């Protein structure tokens, strides 16, 4: 029996459910034409963001990418604000300036996700550098996709963090595909974690569909980083169960592959674990699921009823310190 408090295990389960339910709702709202623009979800890979997000401490910083819904929710960015963001409402995380998963809020220690994949690797590294300069015992968690690891910024961020032994843990949500591009056209190594050898950063591989495994690995790496042990790279092997975005039927993914992974659904895994080890009961889990559902119901109505931003909002906020026009 691994030593995670029962309440933490139940919280992990709760966030898995909340993430799944939020994104499932987004999916159906998208098909009803109630979402503005596109809709991306992390379906099937929720254990990654929930696991590494939950292992962070309050003052730590997350530099996520766009399949990290669990992180947003765990850090305290509410389902209401996220749902409103999907609908382009004034009450959304960005007041309507940004959409869907392009989320960031310093009040909750979440650095904004720039579409350009892996840009947050160097950015996260910089936050970790600040902590080292100031001698603060805080860590950064940065995440990207398997495709994102092919970018120069992945290389430059990892290398700088390694040279300066910064308090940052790099995660990769290896969901087998980058849009339609399979791993074999993305890299010539067997594991994404093999990439970390180039930097002298220890690379770990975990089952990305097992939230406890992700959580434990993250916690261990954070502790190490927090105590001056330097960065770790953690590859979470999982599978993207939806298309790249909700408009994509993903015909390019072999059905058998999906069937295989369906049997390893992260929520199912967690339920099984909690029940078989008598940590929880069916009823309790159902209650948690219900709580999550209600939260999403509220989020949806909140978002639906929220006002749209004013057109003039467009002109505001380009600068933090605008130069007064006389």
């Amino acid at each position, binding site marked *: 029996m691994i030593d995670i408090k029962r309440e933490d295990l139940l919280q992990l389960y709760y966030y898995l459910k909340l993430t799944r339910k939020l994104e499932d709702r987004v999916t159906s709202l998208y098909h009803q034409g109630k979402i*503005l623009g596109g809709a991306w979800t992390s379906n099937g890979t929720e254990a990654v963001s929930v696991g590494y997000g939950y292992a962070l401490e309050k003052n730590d910083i997350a530099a996520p990418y766009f399949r990290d819904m669990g992180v947003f929710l765990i850090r305290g960015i509410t389902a209401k604000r996220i749902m409103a963001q999907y609908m382009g*409402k004034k009450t959304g995380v960005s007041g309507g300036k940004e959409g869907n998963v392009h989320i960031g809020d310093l009040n909750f220690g979440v650095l904004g996700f*720039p579409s350009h994949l892996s840009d947050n690797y160097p950015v996260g590294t910089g936050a970790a550098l600040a902590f080292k300069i100031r001698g603060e015992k805080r860590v950064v968690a940065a995440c990207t996709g398997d495709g994102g690891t092919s970018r120069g910024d992945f290389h430059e961020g990892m290398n700088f963090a390694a040279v300066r032994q910064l308090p940052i843990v790099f995660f990769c949500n290896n969901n087998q595909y980058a*849009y339609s591009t399979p791993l074999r*056209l993305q890299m010539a190594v067997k594991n994404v974690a093999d990439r970390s050898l180039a930097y002298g950063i220890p690379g770990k591989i975990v089952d990305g569909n097992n939230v406890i495994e992700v959580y434990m690995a993250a916690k261990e790496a954070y502790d190490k980083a927090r105590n001056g042990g330097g960065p770790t790279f953690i590859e979470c092997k999982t599978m993207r169960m939806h298309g790249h975005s909700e408009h994509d039927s993903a015909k390019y993914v072999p059905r058998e592959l999906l069937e295989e992974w369906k049997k390893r659904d992260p929520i199912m895994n967690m339920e099984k674990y909690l029940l078989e080890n008598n940590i929880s009961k069916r009823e309790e889990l159902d209650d948690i699921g219900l709580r999550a559902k209600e939260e999403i119901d509220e989020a949806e109505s909140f978002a639906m009823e929220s006002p749209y931003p*004013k057109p003039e909002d467009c*002109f505001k906020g380009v600068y933090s310190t605008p130069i007064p026009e006389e």
Partner: protein
Amino acid sequence: MREITYLEAIKEALDEEMTRDPSVFILGEDVGVYGGAFRVTEGFYEKYGELRVLDTPLSESGFTGAAIGASLVGMRPVVEMQFADFISCAFDQIVSVAAKNHYRWGAATPIVVRAPYGGNIHGGAFHSQSIEGFFFNVPGLKIVAPSTAYDAKGLLKAAIRDNDPVIYCEHKYLYRRIKDDVPVEDYVIPLGKARIALEGTDVSIITYGAMVHTALEAAQTLKGKGISVEVVDLRTILPLDKKSILTTVKKTNKAVILHEQTKTGGVGAEVSALITEHCFEYLDGPVIRVAAPDTPVPYSAQMEEIFIPQTGDVVSAVEKLMHY
């Protein structure tokens, strides 16, 4: 003749050029098996094979640099940016290598970089940008921005056959929204030459890309008000067709410049400067620019609508100028 969409025109140009010339090949993210995020290269992988329609790793600088290298040894690569916005990651290769090769050491770099750009698709700051401004001050590059299916095909063929690096700005909003007559016979539209999209006598609207349609709409409305508008479609924005710009202004003596790109440092600034520099004495009034405000592209529909210049904005700008 038959009508095809802007997207079909791009697709045909690519297809015909690849058939005509074995040195033409395509590379980018998801252009192969998937046929491209916008389906521009659908079926190409099956037709031309995996070595001429290459799915690349997620690395814009890497595959743009690779296109440059291939072009230096006799190929004519066409690079697809999944969205124009990601061209920022390939900026160094385009500006430091491609743009300067010929001047620095006499090597031609015949690459085409396809940049699906522009707003009105609820894409936000990273899926809606007009990127011509990144490159407009970089000598050695050519930039085109077709507004019709006819131009999309003819300019892409010209770009592929040209020996210099060309950034091909294709407007996402036009992909499936416009259709026009495109000949089946092979043709090219020379780079560096603008066209008169509408003849007029009272005022000139100088524009390019999706805004050409906004200009034509505005011209319609203004016609009803007895104002005859000449619409100039630049087609190529680098280098600019100075002659056509000056000719229309000398004819109408009034100029309004229109673009979706943000105003400060936009193409319109250069066009305006050229006009005052070269035909100041012909001007009946100030050169007016109608452009996006100096902000990133906002997400929400309400904000994006005032971000992107609308017909009404153009109409009032022209009227303001007429009553100057």
